[in-house]
């Protein structure tokens, strides 16, 4: 087998993320993904070029969008003969897509490609009532008037109620927040700790925008030039006033302030070989070196829905011969503040380490000043499939900004997902 090549991250782009029903209320997934791709193409000067692959996807998807990414490529400034495919893995979608492209790059199957993702909760698919759909399908097969009369008799008024996508697990019927509330209570994550993490996310993101960090990572869209979920003037006092929205309405600790809101947005990241980068005069920001996925059995109550990364990280560390402390940056997706805190607590907990991971020594604590230093999903919002590409681009640029990293410039990316999935990755300068 040939030697693996480096998968260099050369740049990223996203449109500012918008809370559901606001700035992008009339934009489709195709519109937003095309805008994110076009911004990336413009920044890197790739108009009219053919890339090896574009992989991406959306979580909330119309059936007509089965080829969403390919359609976006056709609508974008990229050459029309750039191949593309769709991936769908809940909140891990664009990290998995980026990994797919990076793996193709590493294997020598392509020299350059894009990983991307998009989601809208404002233009979500609303489907026919399932009962009505079955009647209509039978009507397609009907022969003669008698069959039609029979089918007419099957129509009921309640079949007019459409199928609306729900943020709930198919296997349990519980929403993601309700699942996380169970985990939060199990790990005894305090309201104060969650609010502090949320505040840090807003503070860090505001500072990043203010210092121009996103000048080459974001392109305005539909009049929005910053994430509209960002509240730079947020405070612990204002966060403390919010009522719990998940778990017990009295004693619960998860509020709208320390949970991510429904969000619209799109993000993309370009991955190529260092040779391709040199040939196109593009500086390399960082490299995607490895990744690991895991899943947990949340259905039977054995583990929390969003805890899979707690299992994936130790396996990845073992393979790379690293400790949890060998990182300069940690990018842990803030689905909920308590998700991050429960994951960190698990890595420090001897019982979890012994019983769940089957290991002797806990991974230990991380230096919290290295966590989500340019803000994360609590502040940006979380368009499910776009989050991975946002995080990869942010981490890569952060690493590229300094030469004096203690560990040479190494970031851990961790993203939990619906279905008990989780995907983690290592990015190095």
């Amino acid at each position, binding site marked *: 087998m040939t030697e693996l090549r480096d998968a260099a991250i050369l740049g990223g782009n996203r449109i500012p993320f918008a809370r559901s029903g606001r700035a992008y209320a009339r934009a489709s997934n195709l519109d937003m993904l095309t*805008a994110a791709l*076009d*911004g990336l*193409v*413009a*920044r*890197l*000067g790739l*108009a*009219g070029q053919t890339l090896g692959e574009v992989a991406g996807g959306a979580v909330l998807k119309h059936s007509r969008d089965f080829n969403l990414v390919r359609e976006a490529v056709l609508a974008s*400034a990229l050459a029309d003969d750039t191949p593309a495919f769709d991936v769908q893995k809940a909140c891990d979608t664009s990290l998995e897509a980026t990994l797919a492209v990076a793996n193709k790059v590493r294997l020598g199957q392509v020299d350059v490609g894009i990983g991307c993702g998009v989601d809208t909760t404002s233009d979500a698919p609303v489907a026919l009532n399932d009962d009505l759909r079955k009647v209509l399908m039978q009507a397609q097969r009907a022969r003669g008037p008698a069959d039609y009369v029979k089918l007419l008799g099957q129509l009921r008024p309640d079949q007019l109620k459409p199928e609306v996508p729900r943020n709930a697990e198919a296997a349990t019927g519980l929403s993601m927040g309700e699942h996380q509330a169970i985990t939060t209570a199990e790990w005894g994550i305090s309201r104060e700790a969650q609010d502090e993490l949320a505040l840090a996310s807003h503070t860090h993101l505001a500072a990043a925008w203010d210092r*121009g960090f*996103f*000048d*080459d990572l*974001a*392109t*305005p*869209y*539909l009049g929005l*030039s910053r994430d509209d979920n960002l509240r730079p003037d947020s405070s612990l006092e204002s966060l403390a006033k919010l009522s719990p929205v998940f778990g017990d309405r009295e004693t619960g600790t998860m509020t709208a302030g320390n949970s991510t809101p429904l969000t619209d947005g799109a993000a993309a990241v370009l991955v190529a070989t260092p040779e391709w980068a040199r040939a196109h*005069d*593009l*500086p390399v920001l960082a490299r995607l070196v490895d990744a690991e996925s895991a899943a947990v059995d949340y259905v039977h109550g054995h583990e929390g829905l969003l805890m899979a990364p707690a299992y994936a990280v130790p396996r990845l560390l073992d393979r790379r011969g690293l400790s949890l402390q060998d990182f300069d940056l940690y990018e842990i997706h803030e689905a909920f503040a308590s998700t991050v805190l429960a994951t960190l607590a698990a890595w420090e907990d001897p019982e979890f380490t012994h019983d769940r991971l089957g290991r002797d020594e806990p991974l230990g604590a991380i230096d919290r000043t290295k966590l989500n230093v340019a803000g994360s999903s609590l502040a940006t919002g979380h368009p499910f499939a776009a989050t991975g590409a946002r995080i990869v681009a942010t981490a890569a640029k952060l690493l590229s900004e300094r030469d004096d990293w203690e560990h040479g410039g190494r970031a851990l990316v961790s993203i939990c997902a619906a279905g008990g999935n989780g995907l983690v990755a290592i990015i190095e300068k």
Partner: protein
Amino acid sequence: MPDLYTRVVNHDVGQRIADLVGLPKPAVLRRHEPGQTLAAGPVVVTDGATGGTLAATAREALAAAGVEVHDDLADAQDVPRYAGLVFDASGLATTSDLAALHDTFHTTIRRLGASSRVVVLGRVPAECDDPATHAAQRSLEGFVRSIGKELRAGGTANLVEVAADAASGLAAPLRFLVSARSAFVSGQRLTVSAPSGTAAADPERPHDGRVAVVTGAARGIGAAIADTLARDGATVVCVDLPSAGDGLATVANRVGGTALQLDITAADAGAVLVDHVARRHGHLDTMVHNAGVARDKTIAGMDRARWDLVLGVNLGAIEAIDETLLRTDAGRAVLGADPRIVCVSSMSGIAGNRGQSNYATSKAGVIGHVAALADDVAAVGGTINAVAPGFIETEMTGAMPVATRELGRRLNSLSQGGLPVDVAEAIGFLAWPDADGVNGTTLRVCGQNLLGA
């Protein structure tokens, strides 16, 4: 696309009504399209007097650009209409010599066709030691400006003053002024101050292989500049504020260039720009300072913030970036062998405008900036010039009240507003490699507007 009124009076019925009522009749101007001939037909090049030194150069330059050049007027049966008249007035040394202007134009002007080009070639009056010669050469300006107002059907008239020993610098300006690229340039005096040390550029793609930076490229005139430079072969780095990034990306992708989201008033803007161009493109050949803002108020009602913003963007940022380009090691390293800097001034900077004291101050400052830096830029093999647009049809003028807009549009010899591409073509010309004879000047693109003329 011409404005509605222009389209109406160029239509059968509209034309008849306009004739009847005596309304102005703006022509649809001939504009550059790739592949078109430089001139719409033959051009006659006339020696004004013995002792003239420029006719031969003019003939050679036009012939090299594929123009059919006539030394004398052909019979009207053979050539009913000429596309242009180039008159070498450099030999006119006395008041009585000026009669040559009458002799030629009295008969020839009726032979000029639509969108015709009159170019009078003269000397720099201040260089003429003999008082009579100085006066005669200075007279040309009044003559040309009048001809500009007499020409019909989109014709333009311009004067090119050529300094002693600078005749070879005439070719590029002459090509520009005879071509459709100068559709909205009329009644102007352009000075050729130095000979050209560069071979004539490919007339179709004069910017081939060159890298251009255009600020304020997200829309309007800036977008047209990016389009025009790219059409003529340049790789364009499109710069605009991060908040204008979506329009910027559209333009950058359209021209196959790169988008750089940058606030040009930031302290490190010059360094960021230089670093981007050096890394991505290796060299910077054309720097177009187009970004500008207006915050109109009469001076009594204008707060300091409006003043500071307009002066900061329209003048301060240009000075700072040019300082980086010319006086830092990184800046000088990225400049190509024959760099071109082109700034965008404004008619307001020449004529002044009520409610625009901040804007006019900044735009007049730009005229001073290019004059002041001309020698420094020449020292690194380049030129720095400005264009001063008059009434140009943009989103901004489209938002003006109808009466103000109509008035603004018609107050020039062509009775119409210019298009963003007209400004872009003039900038493109000043950035041609062989336009190296023109330095430190400001060229108006105003259709010979009455304001500040």
